[in-house]
């Protein structure tokens, strides 16, 4: 059993997001939390509004890229931050609930604005211990 968590990893100009969990869907959810954590502490984002999201792609790699870019888009146009994600993946189709609230510049003190999830260091796969890893570099 792999404990679900997220982490950041370095890149020359920007920063990497990585989700680790015992299922692919939860690794995608953790990668999304890592994305939020680039901006602010996800624990400080209240779950006031639920946004339903869907995307599909021909490969796990492109699905992760699409998922994170969809979140970046929703964060930008809704002026929101998300602190909780519930993700299901079935046959290349991702359905998710993202919970969050409008950006509060004083309380969230947003550090950076993600521009886009890139194809650099893009990986989705299982480790030897069975844990799923979902990661890429985000341009900020």
């Amino acid at each position, binding site marked *: 059993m792999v404990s679900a968590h997220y982490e950041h990893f370095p890149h020359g100009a920007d920063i990497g997001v990585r989700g680790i969990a015992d299922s692919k869907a939860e690794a995608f959810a953790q990668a999304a939390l890592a994305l939020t954590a680039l901006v602010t502490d996800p624990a400080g984002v209240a779950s006031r509004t639920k946004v339903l999201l869907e995307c599909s792609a021909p490969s796990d790699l492109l699905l992760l890229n699409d998922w994170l870019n969809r979140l970046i888009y929703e964060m930008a146009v809704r*002026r929101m931050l998300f602190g909780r994600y519930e993700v299901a993946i079935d046959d290349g189709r991702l359905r998710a609930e993202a919970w969050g609230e409008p950006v509060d510049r004083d309380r969230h003190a947003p550090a950076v604005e993600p521009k886009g999830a890139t194809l650099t260091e893009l990986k989705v796969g299982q480790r030897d211990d069975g844990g799923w890893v979902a990661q890429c570099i985000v341009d900020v």
Partner: protein
Amino acid sequence: MDTNGLKQIGDTEWQVPKSGAMRVPGVIFADAALINDMDNKVLEQLRNVAGLPGIVEAAYAMPDAHWGYGFPIGGVAAFDPDEGGVISAGGVGFDISCGVRTLLTGLKRADIEPVKKSLADSLFRNIPAGVGSTGKISLDETEMDAMLEGGAHWALAQGYGGTEDLERIEERGKVAGARPDAVSTYAKKRQHDEMGTLGSGNHYLEVQEVTRIHDAVAAASFGLRLGDVVVSIHCGSRGLGHQIGTEFLREMAVAAPDFGLVLPDLELACAPLRSELGQRYLGAMRAATNCAYANRQIVTHLTRRVLEHFFPGGRFDLLFDVSHNTCKEEWHAVGGKRRLLFVHRKGATRAFGVGHSDLPAAFAAVGQPVIIGGSMGTSSAILAGNPQPERAFASACHGAGRAMSRHAAARRWRGRQVVDQLAERGIVIKSPSSRGVAEEAPGAYKDTDAVVDAAHRAGLARKVARLEPIVCIKG
């Protein structure tokens, strides 16, 4: 970087010989210290770029080069459509036409010091910056398309600036061939409330002092004198550009096999210039370029309003506006023949030389102003394009370049500590985020002076003036 296998030419140029799939050699402009500090990824990415179809002459890396996406940041490569040349969304980057402009103020440091803190507060209040900020303008679909076609000309028609500004922007503020129809609804929606915003990350508005003049003739032509105060604005095409980059990168990556392209790195995603996809990206990218010109024009207007409040009757003329994430259609002499090429500059600045036909008359005798941004606390620089022959398709560096990842910088410094240390040096920092300040700490960047020196000695552009920060507004 491991320089084994590279051929050193002089003290600021390293040739990467053709090997493997490389169609042309690579060239890295850097002194021994700068190349020693560069990531090996720069070399790997430069070799990959040198293998793209239709590349001409060489793949170049500027002295501030660092690990990027497909292309190194600080990368320059030109492609010939007649030879199957490609256009790459990764070679332009997510922040299309991100750039810097500098305003002259006619003020001296002594004018600024008494009002420094309130000026900083006012700029911070009036220039929308950072996550969640919105501009004061919302564009409907018709206005959005007019902006994407008109660039700075559109902004002027809305009352943001005067016609004299246009002469001081690349392509006189409006790139031809923009195609608003090639820009997705998503990209336009993302830009809906973002006109006239600074953004975040390494974007900034800085009040600076000219602390050194290297080239008196060029400085005089640019209107720069020792002790002058200038204002520099670093931002780009905002959400619209980011969304265009995101969408076309994916589409080009998926379509690559259809074009017979084998990509050693997905981020090198590209399409032949003479393909429907290549042409559609070109049109969308040019629309984003016009968006960046319009955006910087609006931010300039907001800045001028603040300056006019503090210094009534002042003139705040635009020195010049450069973009450093671009692909531009330009004529260049290659092997004695003039060829129309598509020059990608990813984190690199165009540096047209003396007498270039596209330069405004004011700069014909001295070359194009090349604005090199620093980081808060570090110096910035103004250079000038060199006389012929041009180097690296008339390109120069764009900034100091990161020496340390954001991750490492946030671990090493606290934002408050950075702000306090800079305050001791008389520099006022305004930012909504302490961690954002730590990630952008001056120590996280290379020494701007070293990068600029290397560009000067390599003949890419020549040093004109050095600028030091007084006030820095970060997003």
